[in-house]
Protein backbone atom coordinates (compact mmCIF):
# COMPACT_ATOMS: atom_id res chain seq x y z
CA UNK A 1 0.00 0.00 0.00
CA UNK A 2 1.31 3.43 -0.84
CA UNK A 3 1.61 6.02 1.87
CA UNK A 4 -1.07 8.30 0.47
CA UNK A 5 -3.61 5.50 0.33
CA UNK A 6 -2.89 4.65 3.95
CA UNK A 7 -3.42 8.27 4.95
CA UNK A 8 -6.66 8.48 3.02
CA UNK A 9 -7.96 5.35 4.74
CA UNK A 10 -6.91 6.77 8.09
CA UNK A 11 -8.70 10.05 7.59
CA UNK A 12 -11.88 8.45 6.29
CA UNK A 13 -12.22 6.15 9.24
CA UNK A 14 -11.31 8.81 11.77
CA UNK A 15 -13.65 11.40 10.28
CA UNK A 16 -16.53 8.92 10.33
CA UNK A 17 -15.95 8.05 13.97
CA UNK A 18 -15.60 11.57 15.32
CA UNK A 19 -18.33 13.29 17.27
CA UNK A 20 -19.84 16.36 15.58
CA UNK A 21 -17.31 19.12 15.05
CA UNK A 22 -19.45 21.73 16.72
CA UNK A 23 -18.57 19.96 19.96
CA UNK A 24 -15.24 21.72 19.78
CA UNK A 25 -17.00 24.94 20.63
CA UNK A 26 -16.28 25.00 24.37
CA UNK A 27 -12.57 24.51 23.75
CA UNK A 28 -12.49 27.08 20.99
CA UNK A 29 -14.30 29.58 23.19
CA UNK A 30 -11.94 28.89 26.08
CA UNK A 31 -8.84 29.35 23.98
CA UNK A 32 -10.29 32.36 22.20
CA UNK A 33 -11.25 34.08 25.44
CA UNK A 34 -7.85 33.30 26.91
CA UNK A 35 -6.16 34.81 23.87
CA UNK A 36 -8.24 37.95 24.00
CA UNK A 37 -8.10 38.52 27.75
CA UNK A 38 -4.37 38.05 28.08
CA UNK A 39 -2.92 41.18 26.63
CA UNK A 40 -0.34 41.77 29.34
CA UNK A 41 2.73 39.71 29.78
CA UNK A 42 1.47 37.44 32.47
CA UNK A 43 4.11 34.85 33.24
CA UNK A 44 1.44 32.50 34.53
CA UNK A 45 -1.18 32.56 31.82
CA UNK A 46 0.43 33.42 28.50
CA UNK A 47 -1.97 33.63 25.55
CA UNK A 48 -2.18 30.68 23.15
CA UNK A 49 -0.35 32.61 20.44
CA UNK A 50 2.67 32.73 22.70
CA UNK A 51 2.50 28.99 23.07
CA UNK A 52 3.05 28.58 19.36
CA UNK A 53 6.01 30.91 19.47
CA UNK A 54 7.43 28.95 22.35
CA UNK A 55 7.16 25.71 20.41
CA UNK A 56 8.68 27.24 17.31
CA UNK A 57 11.60 28.42 19.41
CA UNK A 58 12.08 24.93 20.74
CA UNK A 59 11.99 23.52 17.28
CA UNK A 60 14.52 26.03 16.02
CA UNK A 61 16.86 25.15 18.85
CA UNK A 62 16.75 21.60 17.56
CA UNK A 63 15.49 20.06 20.77
CA UNK A 64 11.88 19.42 19.90
CA UNK A 65 12.12 16.61 17.38
CA UNK A 66 14.73 14.53 19.17
CA UNK A 67 12.63 14.71 22.32
CA UNK A 68 9.50 13.71 20.44
CA UNK A 69 11.36 10.86 18.83
CA UNK A 70 12.74 9.65 22.15
CA UNK A 71 9.31 9.62 23.77
CA UNK A 72 7.72 7.85 20.83
CA UNK A 73 10.42 5.22 20.52
CA UNK A 74 10.26 4.37 24.21
CA UNK A 75 6.52 4.07 24.05
CA UNK A 76 6.45 1.85 20.99
CA UNK A 77 9.31 -0.36 22.07
CA UNK A 78 7.89 -0.72 25.55
CA UNK A 79 4.49 -1.57 24.12
CA UNK A 80 5.96 -4.19 21.81
CA UNK A 81 7.82 -5.93 24.61
CA UNK A 82 4.75 -5.71 26.83
CA UNK A 83 2.65 -7.34 24.12
CA UNK A 84 5.03 -10.24 23.70
CA UNK A 85 5.39 -10.92 27.41
CA UNK A 86 1.83 -10.01 28.36
CA UNK A 87 0.22 -12.07 25.63
CA UNK A 88 2.55 -14.98 26.29
CA UNK A 89 1.93 -15.13 30.01
CA UNK A 90 -1.74 -14.32 29.50
CA UNK A 91 -2.13 -17.28 27.18
CA UNK A 92 -0.38 -19.57 29.64
CA UNK A 93 -2.69 -18.45 32.40
CA UNK A 94 -5.79 -18.70 30.30
CA UNK A 95 -5.00 -22.11 28.94
CA UNK A 96 -4.02 -23.80 32.18
CA UNK A 97 -6.46 -23.42 35.08
CA UNK A 98 -3.93 -24.88 37.47
CA UNK A 99 -1.31 -22.32 36.56
CA UNK A 100 -3.95 -19.62 36.80
CA UNK A 101 -4.94 -20.58 40.33
CA UNK A 102 -1.36 -20.92 41.48
CA UNK A 103 -0.24 -17.60 40.13
CA UNK A 104 -3.48 -15.73 40.85
CA UNK A 105 -2.94 -14.13 44.29
CA UNK A 106 0.63 -13.20 43.42
CA UNK A 107 -0.58 -11.37 40.34
CA UNK A 108 -3.40 -9.69 42.25
CA UNK A 109 -0.85 -8.36 44.72
CA UNK A 110 1.46 -7.08 42.00
CA UNK A 111 -1.44 -5.54 40.17
CA UNK A 112 -2.42 -3.46 43.21
CA UNK A 113 0.81 -1.53 42.95
CA UNK A 114 0.22 1.48 40.73
CA UNK A 115 2.76 1.75 37.88
CA UNK A 116 3.95 5.22 38.89
CA UNK A 117 5.12 3.76 42.18
CA UNK A 118 7.38 1.41 40.25
CA UNK A 119 9.30 4.30 38.74
CA UNK A 120 11.47 5.10 41.79
CA UNK A 121 12.16 1.40 42.24
CA UNK A 122 13.37 1.17 38.68
CA UNK A 123 15.46 4.28 39.12
CA UNK A 124 17.09 2.78 42.19
CA UNK A 125 17.78 -0.52 40.49
CA UNK A 126 18.77 0.65 37.10
CA UNK A 127 19.83 4.24 37.32
CA UNK A 128 18.90 7.11 35.07
CA UNK A 129 18.92 5.72 31.57
CA UNK A 130 16.88 4.54 28.60
CA UNK A 131 16.80 0.95 29.75
CA UNK A 132 15.14 1.96 33.01
CA UNK A 133 12.57 4.03 31.15
CA UNK A 134 11.79 1.09 28.90
CA UNK A 135 11.45 -1.31 31.83
CA UNK A 136 8.94 0.88 33.58
CA UNK A 137 6.86 1.30 30.44
CA UNK A 138 6.81 -2.46 29.96
CA UNK A 139 5.74 -3.08 33.54
CA UNK A 140 2.96 -0.52 33.27
CA UNK A 141 1.65 -1.68 29.90
CA UNK A 142 1.76 -5.38 30.67
CA UNK A 143 -1.25 -5.56 32.98
CA UNK A 144 -4.15 -4.69 30.67
CA UNK A 145 -2.63 -6.85 27.95
CA UNK A 146 -2.04 -9.80 30.23
CA UNK A 147 -5.44 -9.61 31.88
CA UNK A 148 -7.36 -9.26 28.64
CA UNK A 149 -5.47 -12.07 26.97
CA UNK A 150 -5.83 -14.45 29.89
CA UNK A 151 -9.53 -13.80 30.32
CA UNK A 152 -10.15 -14.28 26.61
CA UNK A 153 -8.14 -17.50 26.60
CA UNK A 154 -10.18 -18.77 29.55
CA UNK A 155 -13.40 -17.96 27.76
CA UNK A 156 -12.73 -19.75 24.53
CA UNK A 157 -15.84 -21.73 23.78
CA UNK A 158 -15.36 -25.36 24.83
CA UNK A 159 -16.82 -26.44 21.52
CA UNK A 160 -13.88 -24.95 19.66
CA UNK A 161 -11.60 -27.00 21.85
CA UNK A 162 -13.73 -30.06 21.08
CA UNK A 163 -13.26 -29.32 17.41
CA UNK A 164 -9.52 -29.12 17.95
CA UNK A 165 -9.62 -32.44 19.78
CA UNK A 166 -11.75 -34.19 17.20
CA UNK A 167 -9.48 -33.02 14.39
CA UNK A 168 -6.57 -34.34 16.44
CA UNK A 169 -4.66 -31.04 16.52
CA UNK A 170 -1.29 -31.06 18.23
CA UNK A 171 -0.92 -28.68 21.17
CA UNK A 172 1.14 -26.34 19.03
CA UNK A 173 -1.38 -26.35 16.20
CA UNK A 174 -4.20 -25.83 18.66
CA UNK A 175 -2.48 -22.77 20.06
CA UNK A 176 -1.57 -21.45 16.62
CA UNK A 177 -4.82 -22.11 14.77
CA UNK A 178 -7.50 -21.80 17.40
CA UNK A 179 -6.45 -20.22 20.67
CA UNK A 180 -4.31 -17.41 19.33
CA UNK A 181 -6.81 -16.16 16.71
CA UNK A 182 -9.58 -16.38 19.28
CA UNK A 183 -7.84 -13.98 21.66
CA UNK A 184 -6.82 -11.43 19.04
CA UNK A 185 -9.80 -9.08 19.60
CA UNK A 186 -9.23 -9.08 23.37
CA UNK A 187 -5.50 -8.59 22.90
CA UNK A 188 -6.14 -5.55 20.73
CA UNK A 189 -8.47 -4.16 23.35
CA UNK A 190 -5.78 -4.67 25.97
CA UNK A 191 -3.29 -2.79 23.82
CA UNK A 192 -5.78 0.00 23.31
CA UNK A 193 -6.11 0.34 27.09
CA UNK A 194 -2.37 0.11 27.60
CA UNK A 195 -1.63 2.87 25.11
CA UNK A 196 -2.51 5.87 27.31
CA UNK A 197 -0.76 4.13 30.21
CA UNK A 198 2.49 3.97 28.27
CA UNK A 199 2.25 7.67 27.48
CA UNK A 200 1.65 8.54 31.11
CA UNK A 201 4.48 6.42 32.45
CA UNK A 202 6.93 7.60 29.80
CA UNK A 203 6.17 11.20 30.63
CA UNK A 204 6.41 10.51 34.33
CA UNK A 205 9.87 9.04 34.02
CA UNK A 206 10.99 11.90 31.83
CA UNK A 207 9.66 14.54 34.21
CA UNK A 208 11.11 12.82 37.24
CA UNK A 209 14.52 12.08 35.86
CA UNK A 210 14.96 14.42 32.90
CA UNK A 211 15.89 11.47 30.70
CA UNK A 212 15.46 12.70 27.12
CA UNK A 213 11.89 13.21 25.98
CA UNK A 214 8.97 15.61 25.88
CA UNK A 215 8.48 15.34 29.63
CA UNK A 216 12.06 16.37 30.19
CA UNK A 217 11.55 19.36 27.90
CA UNK A 218 8.46 20.30 29.87
CA UNK A 219 10.05 20.21 33.27
CA UNK A 220 13.10 21.99 31.90
CA UNK A 221 10.88 24.75 30.53
CA UNK A 222 9.11 25.01 33.89
CA UNK A 223 12.36 25.33 35.77
CA UNK A 224 13.40 28.13 33.45
CA UNK A 225 10.04 29.81 33.85
CA UNK A 226 9.35 29.53 30.14
CA UNK A 227 5.62 29.29 30.64
CA UNK A 228 4.60 29.57 26.95
CA UNK A 229 6.69 26.49 26.24
CA UNK A 230 5.15 24.62 29.13
CA UNK A 231 1.66 25.24 27.81
CA UNK A 232 2.73 24.63 24.24
CA UNK A 233 4.23 21.28 25.12
CA UNK A 234 1.08 20.40 27.04
CA UNK A 235 -0.96 20.95 23.91
CA UNK A 236 1.58 18.98 21.92
CA UNK A 237 1.25 16.07 24.29
CA UNK A 238 -2.50 16.21 23.96
CA UNK A 239 -2.32 16.15 20.18
CA UNK A 240 0.26 13.39 20.29
CA UNK A 241 -1.99 11.26 22.46
CA UNK A 242 -4.95 11.84 20.17
CA UNK A 243 -2.92 10.93 17.13
CA UNK A 244 -1.55 7.73 18.63
CA UNK A 245 -4.95 6.62 19.83
CA UNK A 246 -6.61 7.27 16.50
CA UNK A 247 -3.90 5.51 14.53
CA UNK A 248 -4.28 2.48 16.71
CA UNK A 249 -8.06 2.58 16.48
CA UNK A 250 -7.83 2.52 12.70
CA UNK A 251 -5.26 -0.25 12.80
CA UNK A 252 -7.53 -2.22 15.09
CA UNK A 253 -10.56 -1.70 12.88
CA UNK A 254 -8.71 -2.90 9.80
CA UNK A 255 -7.32 -5.93 11.58
CA UNK A 256 -10.69 -6.92 13.00
CA UNK A 257 -12.51 -6.87 9.69
CA UNK A 258 -12.54 -10.64 9.66
CA UNK A 259 -14.17 -10.95 13.06
CA UNK A 260 -17.90 -10.83 13.76
CA UNK A 261 -19.08 -7.28 14.53
CA UNK A 262 -19.64 -8.12 18.20
CA UNK A 263 -15.91 -8.64 18.68
CA UNK A 264 -15.16 -5.45 16.80
CA UNK A 265 -17.27 -3.20 18.92
CA UNK A 266 -16.28 -4.47 22.36
CA UNK A 267 -15.97 -1.32 24.39
CA UNK A 268 -14.63 -0.80 27.82
Amino acid sequence: MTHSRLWRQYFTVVAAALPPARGMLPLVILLGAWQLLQTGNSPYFPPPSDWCNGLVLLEKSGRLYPALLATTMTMLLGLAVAVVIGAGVGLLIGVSPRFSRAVGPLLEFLRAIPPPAIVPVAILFMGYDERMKLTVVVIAAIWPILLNTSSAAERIHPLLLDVAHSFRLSAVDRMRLIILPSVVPALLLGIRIALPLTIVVTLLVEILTSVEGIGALMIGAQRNFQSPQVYGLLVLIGLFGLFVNSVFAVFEAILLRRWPPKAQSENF
Partner: protein
Amino acid sequence: MDERRFFAGINWPGTAVFVLVGLAWEVVIRSGLLEYEYLPAPSAIGLGLGQLAREGTLAPDIAHTLIAVAIGWTVATAVGIALGFLLGLSPTARRYSLASIEVLRPMPGVAFAPVGLLLFGFSLKTEMVVTILPVLWPVLVNTMGGVSGVHPRLYDVSRTFRLSRKDTILHVILPAAMPPIVVGARISLSLALVLTVVAEMVGNPEGLGYGIVREQQALHPDLMFAYIVTVGFIGIVLNAGMLALAETVFPSSRQLRGPQ
Protein backbone atom coordinates in the same frame (compact mmCIF):
# COMPACT_ATOMS: atom_id res chain seq x y z
CA MET B 1 -16.03 -10.93 46.25
CA ASP B 2 -19.06 -12.76 47.57
CA GLU B 3 -18.59 -13.61 51.24
CA ARG B 4 -19.81 -17.14 50.67
CA ARG B 5 -17.33 -17.79 47.91
CA PHE B 6 -14.51 -16.32 49.97
CA PHE B 7 -14.92 -18.76 52.80
CA ALA B 8 -15.84 -21.76 50.75
CA GLY B 9 -13.17 -21.48 48.15
CA ILE B 10 -9.91 -20.16 49.53
CA ASN B 11 -7.34 -20.60 46.86
CA TRP B 12 -4.91 -22.94 48.61
CA PRO B 13 -2.44 -23.49 45.77
CA GLY B 14 -2.41 -19.78 45.01
CA THR B 15 -1.91 -18.73 48.61
CA ALA B 16 0.80 -21.34 48.95
CA VAL B 17 2.65 -20.01 45.93
CA PHE B 18 2.33 -16.48 47.24
CA VAL B 19 3.66 -17.39 50.66
CA LEU B 20 6.42 -19.52 49.19
CA VAL B 21 7.62 -16.74 46.93
CA GLY B 22 7.68 -14.39 49.89
CA LEU B 23 9.63 -16.91 51.98
CA ALA B 24 12.05 -17.66 49.17
CA TRP B 25 12.65 -13.95 48.68
CA GLU B 26 13.36 -13.58 52.41
CA VAL B 27 15.71 -16.52 52.57
CA VAL B 28 17.57 -15.65 49.41
CA ILE B 29 18.36 -12.14 50.55
CA ARG B 30 19.06 -12.94 54.19
CA SER B 31 21.37 -15.81 53.44
CA GLY B 32 23.36 -13.68 51.10
CA LEU B 33 22.63 -15.97 48.18
CA LEU B 34 21.65 -13.02 46.07
CA GLU B 35 23.48 -9.86 46.89
CA TYR B 36 21.52 -7.08 45.42
CA GLU B 37 22.14 -3.80 47.04
CA TYR B 38 18.74 -2.34 46.46
CA LEU B 39 16.46 -5.31 46.97
CA PRO B 40 15.38 -5.57 50.60
CA ALA B 41 13.97 -8.73 52.15
CA PRO B 42 10.25 -8.66 53.01
CA SER B 43 11.09 -8.57 56.70
CA ALA B 44 13.23 -5.52 56.13
CA ILE B 45 10.27 -3.83 54.46
CA GLY B 46 8.14 -4.68 57.46
CA LEU B 47 10.77 -3.29 59.80
CA GLY B 48 11.00 -0.21 57.61
CA LEU B 49 7.28 0.34 58.01
CA GLY B 50 7.65 0.06 61.77
CA GLN B 51 10.52 2.49 61.72
CA LEU B 52 8.58 5.05 59.75
CA ALA B 53 5.64 4.70 62.07
CA ARG B 54 7.81 5.15 65.14
CA GLU B 55 9.59 8.15 63.68
CA GLY B 56 6.23 9.74 63.20
CA THR B 57 6.69 10.35 59.48
CA LEU B 58 4.29 7.72 58.19
CA ALA B 59 1.09 9.01 59.72
CA PRO B 60 1.41 12.63 58.52
CA ASP B 61 2.36 11.43 55.05
CA ILE B 62 -0.66 9.15 54.88
CA ALA B 63 -2.83 11.97 56.16
CA HIS B 64 -1.51 14.44 53.60
CA THR B 65 -2.08 12.09 50.71
CA LEU B 66 -5.53 11.11 51.92
CA ILE B 67 -6.56 14.72 52.35
CA ALA B 68 -5.32 15.58 48.89
CA VAL B 69 -7.19 12.62 47.45
CA ALA B 70 -10.32 13.56 49.35
CA ILE B 71 -10.32 17.14 48.14
CA GLY B 72 -9.46 16.31 44.57
CA TRP B 73 -11.93 13.49 44.33
CA THR B 74 -14.76 15.40 45.97
CA VAL B 75 -14.37 18.43 43.73
CA ALA B 76 -14.00 16.32 40.59
CA THR B 77 -16.94 14.09 41.47
CA ALA B 78 -19.18 17.04 42.30
CA VAL B 79 -18.35 18.84 39.06
CA GLY B 80 -18.48 15.61 37.12
CA ILE B 81 -21.92 14.65 38.35
CA ALA B 82 -23.28 18.15 37.85
CA LEU B 83 -21.93 18.51 34.33
CA GLY B 84 -22.73 14.89 33.56
CA PHE B 85 -26.33 15.47 34.52
CA LEU B 86 -26.60 18.58 32.38
CA LEU B 87 -25.08 16.86 29.40
CA GLY B 88 -27.04 13.70 29.98
CA LEU B 89 -30.34 15.53 29.99
CA SER B 90 -29.70 17.72 26.96
CA PRO B 91 -28.75 16.18 23.63
CA THR B 92 -28.02 19.66 22.30
CA ALA B 93 -25.53 20.35 25.05
CA ARG B 94 -23.95 17.01 24.27
CA ARG B 95 -23.60 17.78 20.60
CA TYR B 96 -21.86 21.02 21.45
CA SER B 97 -19.39 19.51 23.87
CA LEU B 98 -18.64 15.88 23.09
CA ALA B 99 -15.77 16.66 20.75
CA SER B 100 -14.09 18.86 23.36
CA ILE B 101 -14.45 16.14 25.95
CA GLU B 102 -12.99 13.55 23.60
CA VAL B 103 -10.02 15.81 22.96
CA LEU B 104 -9.39 16.65 26.60
CA ARG B 105 -10.02 13.23 28.06
CA PRO B 106 -6.81 11.49 26.97
CA MET B 107 -4.61 14.25 28.46
CA PRO B 108 -2.28 12.54 30.90
CA GLY B 109 -2.52 13.98 34.41
CA VAL B 110 1.21 13.92 34.87
CA ALA B 111 1.62 16.39 32.00
CA PHE B 112 -0.14 18.98 34.12
CA ALA B 113 2.53 18.78 36.82
CA PRO B 114 4.87 21.33 35.25
CA VAL B 115 1.90 23.65 34.74
CA GLY B 116 0.90 23.20 38.37
CA LEU B 117 4.44 23.90 39.51
CA LEU B 118 4.52 26.98 37.33
CA LEU B 119 1.35 28.38 38.81
CA PHE B 120 1.49 27.28 42.41
CA GLY B 121 4.98 26.05 43.16
CA PHE B 122 5.28 23.51 45.91
CA SER B 123 1.81 23.37 47.38
CA LEU B 124 -1.32 21.33 47.68
CA LYS B 125 -2.80 23.32 44.81
CA THR B 126 -0.27 21.80 42.44
CA GLU B 127 -1.49 18.36 43.43
CA MET B 128 -5.01 19.50 42.65
CA VAL B 129 -4.01 20.69 39.19
CA VAL B 130 -2.66 17.26 38.40
CA THR B 131 -5.52 15.35 39.97
CA ILE B 132 -8.76 17.14 39.21
CA LEU B 133 -9.04 17.11 35.44
CA PRO B 134 -8.28 13.43 34.73
CA VAL B 135 -10.37 12.34 37.70
CA LEU B 136 -13.27 14.37 36.37
CA TRP B 137 -13.69 12.28 33.24
CA PRO B 138 -14.83 8.87 34.52
CA VAL B 139 -17.48 10.50 36.67
CA LEU B 140 -18.64 12.86 33.95
CA VAL B 141 -18.75 10.27 31.22
CA ASN B 142 -20.45 7.70 33.39
CA THR B 143 -23.00 10.16 34.70
CA MET B 144 -23.69 11.43 31.22
CA GLY B 145 -24.11 7.90 29.96
CA GLY B 146 -26.22 6.87 32.92
CA VAL B 147 -28.57 9.83 32.68
CA SER B 148 -28.94 9.76 28.91
CA GLY B 149 -29.38 6.02 29.02
CA VAL B 150 -32.36 6.03 31.33
CA HIS B 151 -34.94 3.84 29.65
CA PRO B 152 -37.58 5.87 27.77
CA ARG B 153 -40.25 3.76 29.40
CA LEU B 154 -39.38 5.35 32.74
CA TYR B 155 -40.10 8.78 31.28
CA ASP B 156 -43.50 7.52 30.16
CA VAL B 157 -44.15 6.33 33.70
CA SER B 158 -43.23 9.69 35.21
CA ARG B 159 -45.50 11.48 32.75
CA THR B 160 -48.35 9.12 33.53
CA PHE B 161 -48.01 10.05 37.16
CA ARG B 162 -47.70 13.73 36.21
CA LEU B 163 -44.45 14.19 38.10
CA SER B 164 -42.89 17.64 38.10
CA ARG B 165 -39.56 18.08 36.41
CA LYS B 166 -37.79 18.24 39.74
CA ASP B 167 -39.50 15.11 40.99
CA THR B 168 -38.71 13.29 37.76
CA ILE B 169 -35.06 14.07 38.16
CA LEU B 170 -34.91 13.23 41.86
CA HIS B 171 -37.07 10.16 41.96
CA VAL B 172 -36.79 8.62 38.53
CA ILE B 173 -33.62 9.64 36.75
CA LEU B 174 -31.25 9.81 39.69
CA PRO B 175 -31.96 6.32 41.05
CA ALA B 176 -31.92 4.84 37.57
CA ALA B 177 -28.59 6.41 36.73
CA MET B 178 -27.03 5.56 40.11
CA PRO B 179 -25.22 2.32 39.19
CA PRO B 180 -23.02 3.79 36.46
CA ILE B 181 -22.49 6.97 38.48
CA VAL B 182 -21.24 4.94 41.41
CA VAL B 183 -18.93 2.93 39.17
CA GLY B 184 -17.57 6.17 37.75
CA ALA B 185 -16.99 7.53 41.24
CA ARG B 186 -15.18 4.38 42.27
CA ILE B 187 -12.88 4.44 39.25
CA SER B 188 -12.24 8.09 39.95
CA LEU B 189 -11.22 7.34 43.50
CA SER B 190 -8.55 4.86 42.44
CA LEU B 191 -7.41 7.27 39.79
CA ALA B 192 -7.31 10.12 42.30
CA LEU B 193 -5.00 8.12 44.53
CA VAL B 194 -2.61 7.31 41.73
CA LEU B 195 -2.56 10.87 40.43
CA THR B 196 -2.07 12.34 43.89
CA VAL B 197 0.88 10.06 44.45
CA VAL B 198 2.27 11.06 41.06
CA ALA B 199 1.76 14.74 41.86
CA GLU B 200 3.66 14.22 45.10
CA MET B 201 6.46 12.55 43.23
CA VAL B 202 7.02 15.26 40.63
CA GLY B 203 5.25 18.27 42.06
CA ASN B 204 4.58 18.92 45.69
CA PRO B 205 7.16 17.28 47.90
CA GLU B 206 4.86 16.00 50.60
CA GLY B 207 2.89 12.90 51.35
CA LEU B 208 3.38 9.27 50.32
CA GLY B 209 4.48 10.02 46.76
CA TYR B 210 7.25 12.25 47.99
CA GLY B 211 8.11 9.64 50.60
CA ILE B 212 8.80 7.09 47.86
CA VAL B 213 11.00 9.44 45.91
CA ARG B 214 12.75 10.81 48.99
CA GLU B 215 13.75 7.37 50.21
CA GLN B 216 14.79 6.38 46.72
CA GLN B 217 17.12 9.35 46.47
CA ALA B 218 18.40 8.70 49.98
CA LEU B 219 19.15 5.12 48.95
CA HIS B 220 16.90 3.58 51.58
CA PRO B 221 15.26 0.78 49.58
CA ASP B 222 13.55 -0.75 52.59
CA LEU B 223 11.81 2.51 53.46
CA MET B 224 11.01 3.15 49.83
CA PHE B 225 9.29 -0.20 49.50
CA ALA B 226 7.54 0.41 52.77
CA TYR B 227 5.97 3.53 51.27
CA ILE B 228 5.04 1.67 48.10
CA VAL B 229 3.35 -1.11 50.03
CA THR B 230 1.44 1.51 52.01
CA VAL B 231 0.19 3.11 48.81
CA GLY B 232 -0.93 -0.26 47.47
CA PHE B 233 -2.65 -1.09 50.72
CA ILE B 234 -4.48 2.24 50.82
CA GLY B 235 -5.60 1.69 47.25
CA ILE B 236 -7.16 -1.64 48.13
CA VAL B 237 -8.82 -0.25 51.25
CA LEU B 238 -10.22 2.77 49.41
CA ASN B 239 -11.61 0.66 46.61
CA ALA B 240 -13.15 -1.94 48.88
CA GLY B 241 -14.48 0.73 51.21
CA MET B 242 -16.06 2.64 48.37
CA LEU B 243 -17.61 -0.54 47.06
CA ALA B 244 -19.09 -1.45 50.44
CA LEU B 245 -20.32 2.06 51.11
CA ALA B 246 -21.90 2.40 47.71
CA GLU B 247 -23.73 -0.87 47.95
CA THR B 248 -25.08 -0.03 51.41
CA VAL B 249 -26.33 3.42 50.51
CA PHE B 250 -27.34 2.64 46.95
CA PRO B 251 -28.33 -1.03 46.78
CA SER B 252 -29.24 -0.67 43.12
CA SER B 253 -25.57 -0.23 42.27
CA ARG B 254 -24.92 -3.86 43.08
CA GLN B 255 -25.93 -4.87 39.58
CA LEU B 256 -22.90 -3.31 38.02
CA ARG B 257 -20.29 -4.65 40.36
CA GLY B 258 -18.64 -6.87 37.79
CA PRO B 259 -14.94 -7.66 37.82
CA GLN B 260 -12.74 -5.29 39.79
